């Protein structure tokens, strides 16, 4: 990918709104490659939508530069940019039929009526709305309206398609279906997609690369699996997925092993090195699904942990304080003997588990030496 030139190049872009105490987007630089499915992920107010709107031309950067296909967009108004946007509210024109909506941009561009007809038909087929061309928007469901908005943008054959929270207004079932369809569609048309979302599941399932944003800044830029397994900091670890975070001191740091002493959890052993100063404060992140539960008393947890870590590391004991059955998994809230709480999830592999844990049960836990992630910030 590095040999290609980026389709969108964001260089040191800052956006400061009048009267706002801090910048909405703060010195962000990003390169987005042609054909990529790129996701801007973050909580509301992190600047992701502002960044998207600056690419579309609806907001002007306070400083910095945005290049689309190598061209500086500073002086280019929204209607002259080679990008199209799917709005969060879909913004389907309520006084036009589906076909008129989809053909609007082509008509503005002065395309002949015949070509409009065939391209509109093609676009509607692409989003599986064929046969609905004569409908008015208020006769469509939310999902259908979104497909109209999608077709209306795709028919323009933009270099980049911008999607602002495209799935947020759909119900859960439809959302899951559309996630696949969007990824599929992107594959088919080969257009670069940039999607803004606050939903981490949505981001993980669709994206090729994700930029996690926090307070106007890019907190981490990575592929979905890397983002989940190797978060760069506490914000990303906490925002993407569910996580237990414990503060501790680095007591050992060598290229192939490291140890952290966490007062809230115990001694944590890692089978890889981290780059931190000896004795410095660090945080250990441990995902709930990476912790094994055991019935206490038989030393099973200790023995299991000892397989890939020195004795006395990577295990803990506690009492179940809460549990929620989610169908595919069960989530346990466990109070460790030192007082801290930890979350552990466990797949429900069979209908009746022999080691069925319940409230107030004493349990032991262990985790493998490659499971914890050490975070320096």
């Amino acid at each position, binding site marked *: 990918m590095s040999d290609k030139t980026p389709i969108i190049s964001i260089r040191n872009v800052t956006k400061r709104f009048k009267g706002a105490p801090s910048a909405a987007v703060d010195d962000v630089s990003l390169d987005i490659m042609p054909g990529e499915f790129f996701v801007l992920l973050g909580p509301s107010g992190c600047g992701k939508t502002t960044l998207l709107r600056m690419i579309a031309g609806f907001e002007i950067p306070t400083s910095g530069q945005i290049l689309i296909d190598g061209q500086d967009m500073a002086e280019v108004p929204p209607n002259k940019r080679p990008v*199209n*946007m799917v709005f969060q*509210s879909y*913004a389907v*024109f309520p006084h036009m039929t589906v076909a008129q909506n989809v053909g*609007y941009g082509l008509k*503005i561009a002065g395309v002949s009526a015949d070509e409009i007809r065939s391209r509109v038909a093609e676009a509607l087929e692409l989003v599986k709305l064929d046969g609905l061309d004569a409908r008015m928007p*208020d006769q469509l469901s939310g999902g259908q309206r979104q497909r109209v908005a999608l077709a*209306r*943008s795709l028919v323009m054959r933009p270099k980049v398609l911008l999607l602002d929270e495209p799935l947020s207004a759909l119900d859960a079932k439809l959302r899951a279906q559309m996630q696949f369809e969007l990824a599929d569609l992107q594959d088919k048309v080969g257009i670069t997609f940039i999607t803004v979302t606050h939903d981490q599941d949505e981001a993980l399932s669709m994206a090729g690369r994700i930029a996690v944003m926090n307070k106007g800044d890019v907190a981490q830029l990575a592929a979905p699996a890397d983002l989940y397994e190797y978060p760069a900091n506490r914000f990303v670890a906490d925002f993407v997925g569910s996580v237990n975070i414990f503060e501790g001191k680095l007591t050992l740091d060598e290229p192939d092993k490291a140890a952290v002493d966490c007062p809230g959890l115990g001694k944590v052993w890692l089978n890889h090195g981290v780059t931190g100063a000896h004795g410095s404060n660090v945080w250990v992140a441990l995902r709930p699904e990476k912790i094994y539960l055991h019935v206490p008393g038989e030393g099973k947890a200790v023995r299991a942990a000892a397989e890939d870590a020195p004795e006395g590391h990577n295990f803990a004991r506690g009492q179940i304080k809460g549990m929620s059955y989610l169908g595919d998994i069960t989530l346990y809230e466990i109070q460790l003997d030192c007082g801290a709480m930890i979350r552990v999830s466990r797949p429900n592999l069979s209908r009746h588990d022999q080691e069925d844990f319940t409230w107030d049960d004493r349990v032991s836990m262990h985790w493998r030496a490659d499971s914890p992630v050490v975070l320096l910030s």
Partner: protein
Amino acid sequence: MEDWKRSRALFAAVATAPLTWLTLFFIVPMGVIWLYSFGTNAGLTEIEISGTLANYKKALEPLYLGIFAKSLVVAGITTAICLVVGFPVALAIVFASDKWKPWLLLGIMLPFWTNLLIRTYALMAVLRTEGYANQTIGWLHDRFGSLLTLVGLPAPGAYEPLHLLYNNFAVVLGLVYVHLPFMVLPLYAALDRLDRSLIEASLDLGAGHLRTLLLIVAPLAAPGIISGIIITFVPALGAYLTPDLLGGTDSQMIANVIERQFKRANNWPFGAALSFLLMYATFIAIAIQALKAKQAEKRG
């Protein structure tokens, strides 16, 4: 709240006063005038309700129909100018910053706080032969003249004041001045409700601002445009004071004729017939509009 209709006593208590007021001071007088329109003058102050249609027949004579037609044209021109001037104003207020918006709206409504008569006299002061408008144009004319002499060109003759008052121009100008807020406010209400992302979507799809205005904003603001047209056109059609004070001998509108029947001519039955003819026309116009709106709703 839902069962307020069921507590009849409360409903009666609340509704009696306004209903009485409406009946006594609106419906009864209207009914009386309506009956007069079918009557004849029996004496200086007496009117005999004879059921005659002679008043309506007289009202439909070419002389009066001509004045009706003229009133329609003047009100139509007024409404058109109000729409052309008011639309950008309403649009500007919608897109003004939140800090400015209330002040701009206040500016639109401020004239309502001043008496119509005073506003009309103020307009007369501006438009008179020696008024502010002529003074300003005359001053510019003189400066331009001295500029020409300065560069050695022959100076134009002395300034001839424009006749801005007591003609149809003054009437239309005055009517626009008075009725502009009636146009701006419903337009503002309609435009303010418009989803901004629709405008952005149109820009995003390649349309410029003008085409977005024509293809997206105007059609979606149509209900506001239509109500603006109606509430501007109807009072402009029945305008009395403005043509009376600003108009010349040839710019009287139907309301001036009606007034003359009730006062100088002392022909109340004929005045009543003219009044009701105006009202029928207005009602028919509104009814047609309502019918069309209903049809459009069915189609949509």
